[in-house]
């Protein structure tokens, strides 16, 4: 479904990613973890080309992505992304946030898009908020709208960049619940998170990054209970699961 080979990325002299190989299959939920600065967010951003790689190949659905500027919009339309800080469009209502891309990018019929947007909002539990502006929402509600907005493009894969890190603790649950529902529906997801419980309960695979390389890539059960990797054990002890 989505495959990354030998991904290198530097910012100036700083080498952030030093040769990452990863493949995610359809319907898989992969959680990326690692200490801050390990490169997990940067890697995620490479997967929808918000960062362009210095080296390496990304293949989506068997097609190698050409990282040319005019090609990227088409690719990004198929790769959804949810950000740590939501990044909702403050000048548009919740419904308009969800409708924007299908209308503008896919040029779908407005009536049809509206119907679909209402359905998606219902799915994330925010039907009654369709007409309000984002500044009237709690953090958890904002993030659920952001997920709805990404879903409206019917992406092949959904990327989550620390989706609950900016939330008050009591609001984390509602967002994780929506994500879990999506996982159960078979959505392909790559999630950067510090929520170990989510990783344990929902992820098919856990990938641990450290200093720009993958140091462990195993199924969740193995990762949390039978890992032999020293750095993983250290990390697990630190986050205390």
């Amino acid at each position: 479904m989505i495959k990354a080979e030998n991904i290198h990325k530097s910012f100036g002299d700083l080498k952030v990613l030093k040769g990452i190989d990863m493949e995610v299959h359809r319907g898989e939920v992969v959680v990326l973890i690692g200490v801050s600065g390990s490169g997990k967010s940067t890697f995620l951003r490479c997967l929808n080309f918000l960062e362009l790689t210095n080296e390496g190949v990304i293949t989506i659905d068997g097609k190698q992505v050409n990282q040319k500027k005019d090609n990227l919009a088409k690719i990004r339309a198929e790769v959804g992304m949810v950000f740590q800080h939501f990044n909702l469009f403050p000048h548009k209502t919740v419904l308009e946030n969800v409708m924007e891309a299908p209308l503008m990018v896919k040029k779908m019929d407005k009536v049809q898009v509206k119907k679909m947007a209402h359905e998606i909002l219902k799915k994330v539990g925010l039907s009654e908020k369709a007409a309000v502006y984002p500044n009237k929402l709690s953090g958890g509600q904002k993030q659920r709208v952001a997920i709805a907005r990404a879903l409206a493009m019917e992406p092949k894969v959904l990327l989550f960049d620390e989706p609950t890190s900016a939330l008050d603790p009591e609001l984390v649950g509602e967002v994780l619940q929506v994500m879990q529902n999506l996982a159960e529906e078979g959505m392909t997801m790559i999630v950067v998170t510090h929520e170990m419980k989510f990783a344990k309960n929902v992820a098919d695979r856990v990938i641990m990054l450290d200093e720009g390389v993958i140091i462990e890539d195993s199924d969740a059960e193995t990762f949390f209970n039978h890992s032999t990797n020293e750095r993983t054990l250290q990390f697990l002890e630190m986050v205390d699961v």
Partner: protein
Amino acid sequence: MPEFLITFYDVFKNTYKGFLQAGLLTIEITAIAVVIGVVLGVIFALMKISNSKILQTIANIYITLIRGTPLIVQIMFLYFGITSIIVLDNFWAGAIALGVHNGAYIAEIFRGSIQGIDKGQREASLALGMNSSLTMRRIVFPQALRRAIPPLGNQFIITLKDSSLVYVIGVSEMFGVANRVAASNFKQFETFLVVGLYYLILVLIFSALLRWYENKLDVDK
């Protein structure tokens, strides 16, 4: 009643018809200059934030030339420059000069407000598959415009007052009329007081409109 007030009233009574007409001209010139300024402002702001070195340089030259020379010189320069090429009356020459002048300042206002929009907005839009131009048009610019409204309003007020300078090329707007009246009635002090009040009234009306509009935008959001 003191002598001064009587003279002031006389001047007011004898000139208000002329000033009414001149006031309309002032408003027209200001409006045209504002429209030209906003159009040029958007174009040059986008050039300035573009990736093209050539476009950036052109925008920088324009802004530097306009900001580095007096408006009155620009008006004369444009008037004699334009009218040597095409036939254009002094009203339009003045309005265009004022508009071109405005464009440089408005470009800087727009550039600042566009660059002030959180870069997460652009990223979220790109991540949805919107290309750069859609992202600018639908997401970044509408937000930047809201942010630009207070400084733009300020710039429009400056334009309204600066429009008095086109009297140098013989446009009969408010200051031009005041100048002529004062030369014929020899009541310079009272006449310029009258025209000063007219400008003040226009500015106050415009400020009130602007405040009302800003409040409306806040409520909408």
